[in-house]
């Protein structure tokens, strides 16, 4: 008996998006990063191609964060004291991209300033040759205040600027347009909202090759399944030819999983939750691994060990020879 693998025939594909610019391209990055281009559901090499493996980014901050888990402080140690050192450490840990999130305030509690944001971005660009994403602290007014000067400061570097949301995307998109950067379009776990924001951003004149969709994920146990299914649905829509759902997808399991109790708290939790360090790392690594299966193209992580473990999974999935 011979058995034929039932294959899907898709008409659409995921758009390819490239971050960073080398000296030849007008930037200072030592390499660029391309994601997207898939023509089949994740890693089904028998019916389509995955020209670019999912990329793994590590999140760093412009200063040592006050609210991160002690486990992350242990993992990064001294490097957290300085964004340049932290970026170097993230590169050494094997990241494909640095995801720099700016804080609302400086270490002494004063509001963050455009000057500080410029200086930090300059420092990170000098410390690491990896492509860079820069996100604001998540308050519309402050985001705009900080990201516009950052976009100018890093002219030519093809940054990923975040985070565009439906309430606040115009200023960030305008800055990306003016200084040749890309944007992260984030919507709360909904296929139509995701599509709609891509359309709005695209209507402002930003080419689709410069938009990344962030459909939002929940942490394992905290609504994870909603984001997971929204991503599968977006990806299926992309293959069916819906052109406004064909952007590569970025998700941030690091941010989501490290804020939940399972990762944050070591004491006063049920004994059967097991060893804290291991549990916290499983939470991030399992969330990320499962998101890879629902179509994630970029995963932003926080713990270097999770990155290492998820990298092993990615390597095995993209390269048939490695698991033969």
């Amino acid at each position, binding site marked *: *008996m*011979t*058995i034929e*693998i*039932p294959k899907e025939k898709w008409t659409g594909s995921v758009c390819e998006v490239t971050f960073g610019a080398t000296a030849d391209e007008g930037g200072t990055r030592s390499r660029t990063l391309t994601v997207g281009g898939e023509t089949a559901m*994740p*890693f*089904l*090499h*028998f019916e389509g191609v995955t020209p670019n493996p999912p990329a793994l980014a590590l999140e760093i901050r412009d200063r040592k964060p006050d609210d991160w888990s002690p486990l992350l402080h242990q993992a990064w140690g001294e490097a957290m004291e300085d964004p340049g050192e932290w970026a170097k450490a993230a590169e050494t840990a094997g990241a494909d991209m640095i995801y720099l999130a700016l804080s609302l305030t400086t270490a002494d509690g004063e509001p963050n300033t455009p000057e500080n944001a410029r200086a930090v971005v300059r420092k990170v660009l000098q410390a690491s040759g990896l492509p860079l994403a820069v996100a604001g602290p998540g308050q519309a007014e402050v985001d705009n205040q900080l990201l516009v000067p950052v976009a100018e400061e890093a002219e030519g570097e093809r940054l990923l600027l975040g985070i565009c949301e439906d309430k606040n995307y115009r200023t960030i998109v305008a800055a990306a347009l003016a200084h040749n950067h890309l944007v992260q379009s984030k919507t*709360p*776990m*909904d296929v139509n*909202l995701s599509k709609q924001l891509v359309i709005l951003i695209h209507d402002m004149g930003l080419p689709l090759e410069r938009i990344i969709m962030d459909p939002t994920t*929940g942490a*394992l*146990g*905290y*609504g*994870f*399944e*909603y984001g*997971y*299914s929204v991503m*599968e*649905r977006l990806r*299926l829509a992309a293959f069916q030819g819906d052109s406004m759902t064909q952007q590569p997808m970025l998700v941030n399991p690091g941010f989501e999983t490290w*804020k*939940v*109790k*399972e990762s*944050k*708290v070591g004491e*006063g939790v*049920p*004994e*059967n*939750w*097991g*060893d*804290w360090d*291991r*549990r916290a790392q*499983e*939470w991030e*690594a*399992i969330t990320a*691994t*499962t998101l890879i*299966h*629902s179509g994630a193209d970029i995963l932003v992580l926080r713990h270097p060990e999770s990155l290492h*473990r*998820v990298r*092993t*999974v990615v390597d*095995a*999935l993209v390269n*048939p020879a*490695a*698991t033969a």
Partner: protein
Amino acid sequence: MALSGLEIYKLLPQTNCKDCNYPTCLAFAMKLAAKQAALKDCPHVSEEAKIKLEAASAPPIALVTIQGGEGEVQVGNETVLFRHEKTFFHRPGLFWRLRDNDDIDELKRKAAEADAYTVDYVGIDLHLDGFAVEAASSDPAAFSAAVSAISSVSKKPLILLAPTADLAKAGLEATNGARPLLYAADQDNWETMADVAKQAGTPLAVRADTLEALADLTQKLKQAGVEELVLDPEVSGYLDSLERLTTLRRLALKKTFRPLGYPIITFPGTNGEIDETLLAAEHIAKYGGLIVLEEFNPASLYALLVLRQNIYTNPQKPIQVQPGVYEINSPDKDSPLMVTTNFSITYFSVANEIEGSGRPGWLLVTDSEGMSVLTAWAAGKFDAERVAKDAKAFNVEEKVSHHKVIIPGHVAVISGELEEEMPGWEIMVGPREAVDITSYLKAMWPN
């Protein structure tokens, strides 16, 4: 593949006699196709048609039941490739592998510890499903003793990893009438294993390293009279698992390929180079039916059990809690009043944190149709109007005397409107995340 209404109609008597209580045979056929009527309601259908229709209505992936001394695990009978298309029905069973060459007391200790393992996740009790006992000694007496020892401390379902009929029989005799899964029939031993499974009335796993060989074997076993089968396609890595398990699911659902229409068993920890937890996570998301773990580690098991729960939640029915005012730690009229949505995960996160803070509080759970705070807000199900309406409906005025209400930090934007909707009330903006509730209450609600 399921037949369409018209295909079913062709097999019916087409007399429109109405004995089935539908006006026409076509109407009845449509109801049959939609699984809203049963064929037995037609007294005139021919034997030949009955056989055809019943064969077509058998599930594309068979349902397999493994029973322990108490409780059972059911796997299979899945109908979709992606959970959003309908839902995934039968959560994969998670089993821990124990070996008969281990010391008997040690086996008992391990089994008892794992048997007692349970974690509460949003009010749901999560636990390991059972044990896979391996006849590693190849000695029927030792295997029997090991199965007895484990059965003496745990009533959970078992999988007997016994490569020969003699070992399988020895294991079965020690299970005290439970209905374990026998593992496994292969090219060499299938005839004798089929005899044992048939005699004991147990399901049987089938092992082969190609899908062709697997299909050959299942057909032989079916002819030999064993109906409940489980497939082991002998996968060992992330990619071959994904390809083979996806192919099996597609063959069953899209081609109604009966020889491979069975649930799948995997052993994600047997390839020592692979991260067992992450491969098990893949098997949970992508089509595993029974998952046998090498390691029992509470931290990893908890994460996998939660993943399984998430993936197998019905996407059409978010788990909700009843809207209303909940009392936490015996609150009085001076205790804080907090608001959240009725999505179960949101409710449990918030309620657990308030409880854990040791402070009394009132929690107003609004009817947000089972959505989390941000999602409900975006969908207009958790706005000022809704909060004010439910505050009134559930009489918060009578519960507290202070006229202060704490809203989730994620919806700080509704505070202005809420002030208008709830005149005389002070709107306080709480933390964005439940985990910060204790420190918030300490700072903002002294005493």
